[in-house]
């Protein structure tokens, strides 16, 4: 085979592979997601600040973001506060207190107890209805309730992502699989890492499993690892649903013991023990009267 023929063969193979990838992406990705890829038309929450108050409570300020240059209408905001109950591994979340908050792009929640706060929002943009939710851990100690809360009987039946919070101490970490589900959710969900904005490219697409759940493992982050133990990033999941979208923002923390070397640790431990043993035996031989 001549050299030119080899080159032509290589070029055509490269073209075939590229075209197959393009075709697979186009065919496998639903139309709604492709549209979202171009213009991220969804509502989402992010935590603006979280701090302790003078009375021992905690305030968390949230910011609601949406498609820019559009008019939002019929904005509704509801909060579900789930108290932590029980002790040790028998811990669980109690029945949630549900209350309505004043519709605004900036919402502040006051927490006076140890609880998991879930903030939900609904807004209409044109003909589309968008939904957003976020969960945040709070450790207030004042025993007081949110002064701006208007208690309601039950949370509205909005489409909302549910995440498996486990039992005692829910704190999503990098490198650990996160399982979430959405009732009648689409086969694909977009994931935006580190608070990606509408102008940012989406990070990845996750597929719904046969059991109806979406599983995602946020990768370890070098910057996060260098930071302290409270460092976190926002991971936002977005699902396109008929007539709108559903988003879910989850703060993901640096993994405790995310990147470890058990083998290295055991070698170090054994070396240390062996050196000490040698020292003790050696000292015993040199000073036999001990």
């Amino acid at each position, binding site marked *: 085979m001549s050299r030119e023929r080899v080159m032509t063969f290589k070029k055509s193979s490269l073209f075939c592979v590229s075209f197959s990838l393009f075709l697979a992406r186009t065919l496998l990705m639903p139309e709604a997601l492709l549209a979202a890829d171009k213009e991220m038309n969804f509502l989402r929450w992010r935590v603006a600040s979280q701090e*302790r108050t*003078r009375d021992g409570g905690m305030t968390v300020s949230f910011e609601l973001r949406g498609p820019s240059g559009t008019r939002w209408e019929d904005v509704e905001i509801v909060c579900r506060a789930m108290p932590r109950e029980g002790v*040790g591994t028998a811990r669980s979340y109690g029945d949630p207190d549900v209350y309505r908050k004043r519709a605004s792009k900036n919402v502040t929640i006051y927490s006076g107890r140890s609880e998991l706060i879930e903030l939900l929002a609904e807004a209409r943009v044109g003909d589309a209805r968008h939904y957003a939710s976020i969960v945040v851990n709070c450790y207030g100690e004042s025993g007081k309730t949110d002064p701006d809360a208007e208690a309601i009987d039950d949370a509205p039946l909005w489409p909302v992502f549910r995440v498996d919070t486990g039992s005692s101490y829910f704190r999503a970490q990098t490198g650990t699989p996160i399982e979430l589900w959405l009732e009648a959710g689409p086969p694909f969900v977009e994931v935006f890492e580190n608070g990606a904005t509408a102008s940012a490219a989406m990070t990845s697409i996750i597929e719904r499993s046969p059991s109806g759940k979406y599983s995602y493992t946020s990768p370890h982050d070098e910057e996060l*690892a260098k*930071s302290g133990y409270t*460092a976190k990033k926002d991971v936002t999941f977005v699902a396109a649903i008929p007539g709108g979208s559903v988003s879910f923002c989850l703060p993901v923390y640096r993994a405790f*013991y995310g*990147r470890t070397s058990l083998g290295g640790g055991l070698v170090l431990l054994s070396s240390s023990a062996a050196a000490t043993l040698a020292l003790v035996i050696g000292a015993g031989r040199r000073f036999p009267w001990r």
Partner: protein
Amino acid sequence: MRGIRAMRAIKVWKIRSLVQHAGFIVMMYGGRFGVHLGSAIPCFACPFVPGCGGYCYLMGLQGYIGFGMSAVAAGGVGLLAALGWFALFAMLVALLGKLWCGWVCPFGLIQDWLSALRRAFGVRERTIPRNTARRLTRVKYLLLSGIVVIPPLATAGILHEDFYLPFCNICPGKSILPLFAGEARYLALNLDNRVTLGFSIALLAITGVMLVGMFFRDRFFCVFCPFLALIHLLKPITLLGLTKEPESCIGCGNCRRVCPMAIEAVYKERVSRDVQGDACLDCASCVEACPSDFALSINFSKLRLFRSSRDYVAELKGKFGR
């Protein structure tokens, strides 16, 4: 008469062993049964053990000193919570003193297991030269000062945030105790950043030294334990303690020989009744071994709980060969 004999047959070391094992189960696995004794436990109830029954106060102290800084800045209730936990800790210490160390501490029990293993192998206990031992007693105060000074520096941003629990990060309890709950991750090097790597190297090196040390020497870790220093600082309010009647002492030296901490002060003291030093664990071994009536006793305020007795020693020798 038979009742009295039966009572005398119950030996303190047996009760102590029973209490230690019960304490181990509660502290290590209590959370699995819904038992949690809070964050002011004056012994190594390690929070890194999944499903533990309470948290060691040293962790609470580090956490509250660190976060207490922000509470002070906010002038808020957080500071009151920190003071509340300290008050509870002080109350527990006032009631039981160093019984927490000698009778309850799970890490103390592990040390006793290793000592028993050494005896079973017929290996002689190693002693530490007197001068070295004197110097080593200062280490626990050094560690205690680190516990108090470092967390605020981490909170203030002067040190990296991962310095927030400095003592836990080098405490061999963190690497050894979770193994009893099937958790081995603390035996690994943590490669997240330089601080976590440095701490994990220090932890594993210290654990290696301690494991060997605890095998060859009774209660080797207790020599360095900041709890002993902290509890000793609260001695003025402690109701429970060891006393000696110097005039009854016959100078046999049994107290010095049986002491797991190799304390000499109890034997040497000839004037004062107060022989409770900073290294004493209130384990009552010296009282059990003392053949002189009333020479040594464990008291709760003015109430004598257990005193030395010639009959008791004779019975121990006769029945148990101790």
